[in-house]
């Protein structure tokens, strides 16, 4: 009997050595250890063994069973590893097929520029305010020191609305509305659509502005220069040259246009188209808030002072992305929008 067991053990281990697949190994397990397996058959013959020999024989059967089971485990590991190698050797994908991309939408370039500008000014402590687009003459002009019948109104060709109203020609009326409601110190920007009766490659009847103002005791022209220089350098380049030159806006005095050194020609000018050879690009209008504006909102110009500025969003976007036709922004051709 002991001999039979040894033979079974040897045969099982030999069979396992050559078994290559999980199913072959399973067959071996059934053949030797299964209910009708060879080892089981030997165990059934235990009755014939003398009681003295039984413990030793039992231990032997268990040892052999464990050995065979161990062998099965080893073979299975080997067979599964071989199976993985076979799989890895046969599986090949075409990594050059296009990715199945859920389409990514785009944020409109004007929104992107607006967000960037808002971010810069919020970072400098300005809060955002909003106001109506259909405005009254008082907030759009009168309170901003545009007298009726003054040529300054020609600077802003107006779209008139029934009921004596206008489409706001700039975001500046928000200045008035905020100052009417609140007291200094104020640090506010206003963003949004503005309208002029004008339409060609560089003028859209609807366009966007960011307006800002700061009012407190002792705000000076030097502060205006400081804040706006910081802001445009954040927007364009940390080292870009900045200059202010005298200009005219009814609601500021002294008034200034702010130019930055042309980034296309490195402020060299020459035949540069971006700056028309001047080396400078106009980016915003600004100035110290006119005393008449303060008086219109009930502030005492002897007590408070402040500066204001206005930036054309389309202009900045056109400069940044070198867009030559303003109408592209409002045409909404996906081939345009998807570039941003």
């Amino acid at each position, binding site marked *: 009997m002991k001999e039979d067991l040894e033979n079974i053990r040897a045969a099982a281990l030999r069979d396992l050595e050559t078994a290559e697949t999980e199913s072959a190994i399973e067959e071996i397990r059934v053949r030797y250890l299964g209910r009708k397996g060879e080892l089981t058959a030997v165990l059934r013959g235990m009755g014939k063994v003398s009681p003295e020999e039984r413990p030793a024989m039992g231990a032997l059967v268990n040892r052999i069973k464990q050995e065979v089971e161990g062998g099965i485990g080893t073979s299975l590991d080997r067979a599964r590893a071989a199976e993985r190698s076979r799989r890895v050797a046969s599986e090949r994908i075409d990594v050059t*097929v*296009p*990715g*199945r*991309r859920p389409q*990514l*939408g*785009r*944020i*409109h370039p004007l*929104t992107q520029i607006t967000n960037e500008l808002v971010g810069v000014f*919020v*970072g400098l*402590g*300005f809060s*955002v305010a*909003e106001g109506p*687009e*259909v405005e009254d003459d008082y907030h759009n002009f009168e309170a901003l020191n545009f007298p009726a*019948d*003054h*040529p300054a109104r020609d*600077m802003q060709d107006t*779209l*008139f*609305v*029934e009921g004596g*109203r206008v489409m706001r020609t700039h975001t500046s009326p928000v200045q008035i509305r905020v100052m009417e409601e609140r007291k200094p*110190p104020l*640090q506010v*920007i206003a963003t949004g659509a503005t*309208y002029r*009766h004008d*339409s060609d490659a560089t003028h859209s009847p*609807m366009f966007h502005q960011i307006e800002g103002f*700061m009012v*407190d005791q*002792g705000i*000076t*022209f*030097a502060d205006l*220069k*400081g*804040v706006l220089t*910081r802001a445009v350098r954040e927007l364009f380049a940390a080292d870009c040259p900045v*200059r202010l*030159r*005298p200009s*005219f806006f009814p609601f500021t*005095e*002294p008034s200034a246009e702010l130019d930055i050194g042309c980034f296309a020609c490195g402020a060299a000018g020459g035949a540069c188209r971006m700056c028309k050879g001047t080396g400078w690009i106009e980016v915003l209008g600004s100035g*110290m808030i006119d*005393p008449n504006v303060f008086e219109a909102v009930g502030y005492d110009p002897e007590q408070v*002072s402040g500066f204001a500025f206005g930036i054309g969003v389309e202009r900045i976007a056109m400069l940044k992305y070198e867009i030559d036709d303003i109408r592209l*922004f*409002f045409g*909404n*051709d*996906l081939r345009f*929008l998807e570039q941003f």
Partner: protein
Amino acid sequence: MKLPLGWLAEFVDIGADTAALCEVLTMGGLEVDAVEERSQGLAGVVVGKIVAIEPHPNGDRLQVCRVDAGAGDPLSVVCGAANARRGLRVAFARDGATLPNGARIGTTEVRGVSSAGMLCSEAELGLADQSDGILELPGKAPIGKDVSEYLGARDTIVELSITPNRGDCLSILGLAREVALLTGVRLRTHRPKVKEKGAAAAAEVSVRIDEAGACRRYAARVIRGVAVGASPMWVRLRLEAAGMRSVNNIVDATNYVMLERGQPLHAFDLAKLQQREIVVRRAGSTDAMQTLDGMVRALVSDDLLITTGDEALAIAGVMGGADSEVTDATTDLLLESAWFDPSSVRQTSKRLDLKSEAAYRFERSVDVEGVVDALDAVAALIATLAGGEIAPGVVDCYPGRREAEPITLRPERVSALLGTEIARSEVRRSVKALGAKVEKADGGALAVYPPTFRSDLVREIDLIEEVARVHGYGEIPTRMPVKQIASGEVPLRMQLAQRIRTVLQGLGFSELVGLAFASEQRNQLFPGTNTTGRGTRLLNPIASDEPELRRSLLTSVVAMWRLNRNQGAGAIAGYSIGKVYWHDGESREGWRVAGVLAGQMPTLGLGTRRPPDFGDAKGVLEQVFEELHVVDRISWVTESTLDSFHPGKTACVHIDGRPVGILGALHPEAEVTLDLDGAHWLFEIDLDAVVKLEVPPLRYAGLPRYPSVVRDLALVVDGDFHSGEISRFVCNWNPDLVEDVYLFDEYVGSPIAPGQKSLAYSIAFRAVDRTLTDEEVNGLQEQLMAALEQEYSVKQR
């Protein structure tokens, strides 16, 4: 304003560096728009002298001239002009010259005689539209000199943007004053010299001003015996350089002096005046007159007129009348130089849509003290150009003379506002440099009397600006304000809009921005979400077919869809966040979000392309509301959708039972109207309503400690049954134990009876305090089914 530098140089030294001059002007607030080098297109045309002349052997009227061009031997030139004669100095286009019409001149053979160039007429030189014979140059014209240079046709013209406050810079003299101020050089001015003769002007004409507010001063001169004709070349060239056309020597003289001194002037034919008293008055009952351009202009009673008797001679400051126009037959002139009220001129010129160089200057105010100087200058120029005798004396009616009022200027205020210390002495020097008279005032302040040509200087702040300008903006320090540290705030609407953009971007939607204008038809088709009344109307729309403001963003969205469909775009997924407008007695406006999903589903790569279905579009909106934490408060109802939407494919979106928007497909009739088709979904949401929602602050909910049990439930219902009913019923049936329910399958067809459909829901049961047993869940499911059968006519499948 076109500034010919040659003209400017008569009044001030400008040096040779044009770029440097432009920089000075720009940094002084006179922005240079463009610089034009002007040479009349003449190259290689020089002054020549005809030293000998003989008839052409083979030509009737041709002659062969020997021309001395200053270099080498005289050249043979064939010429057909009758006025070619020996000793004449001419404009000689040499071999290699080019003319303004682009013609290149070479050596040619004319009927067997070699011709080394061409003798030019005024027309050929581009100096006149037509001309007889060749141009005759004066006997002192230097032989060999470049003709364009000799004639002064070569000049640099600087084009400036003059801001509306600087009417004083709308003249050569005014700009010369600025150059002198900004560069520190001396201004050369001269008072015009007038040689008078004959009977005094006052004996012939008188002036009466009825409206001293609208006409502070009116001065007149009389000239007798002028010869109206063409202006000489130098006058024509200067007018052209400054952007004006030559008319005749009289009109040209008035324009010339206006360009030089900024004072508009007018010449009347004295003989055509019915009476000799000039009256400046309102139009009153005079309701029309014919202006110089031949048009009959309707007048209103407030228009200011120059009249004599009951005859209107001119619309003051805007345009002269046809009746008193100077013609070739005119011999005696009445010259006008006046100050008219800017807003009166502006109102009339705007109403008549009559823009003129004169009105432009009056609107920006002229120098009331310069009126007579300009009148003298134009009289002297006319005498030079057209002959005639200037009658002695100026008829000067000046009821609007004003005592000069000083402006108090506090030097410490200058420093405080500019943020830099500017010495009192510098402040004083700066305003004196403007031409102001300065006296001492109380408390160390200055009493400043601005020059009369600077009518824009009326307040202390105006002077502070001038001090800053003279000081140089670049010299003022750049520094950050000292202030309390506070971060900026962004309104909730903008924050929510940004979150919506982020979600929609991730779901493949591109943002569009449309113009706010709409046609009446579009506003009827898309009357908007939560809008009332009618569309807001524009009084002067950009395009006549879009006279209103959009009531709905769908107007813009649909335009974007059509454009991109026409471009052949596959997937069209776009949205807009913008304003809509309506009018309910008042002008209203509000924020909306609208979008379109059309064409194919927005996915790139391998796989099938499929059109979007309702679930795709609804899912997009649900994700937007998920981001805003209000998705559980949304309901979708079919009642009260818009006529332009398909009644069977459209839902109103409600939040907390109140309508906030719409999602659906166009009505087939609207598709035809809009020329659009194919699978599509449109939505519009009232952003203002969403912003107003109270959203409780987010709080963490504990993670479940016991497992859930998920069961499927398949029901057979009528074909038009709303599946959402079941979902809502199940959720509310036992909120403690039913955690979630969703529809995962909808099936129509065999073995389901026609007219019915099968809905399969997945229901998750969970208790917070224990693990539910199978038996418990089985029991719940049976009770639920019984409740459903009782509530609806449904059967379990």
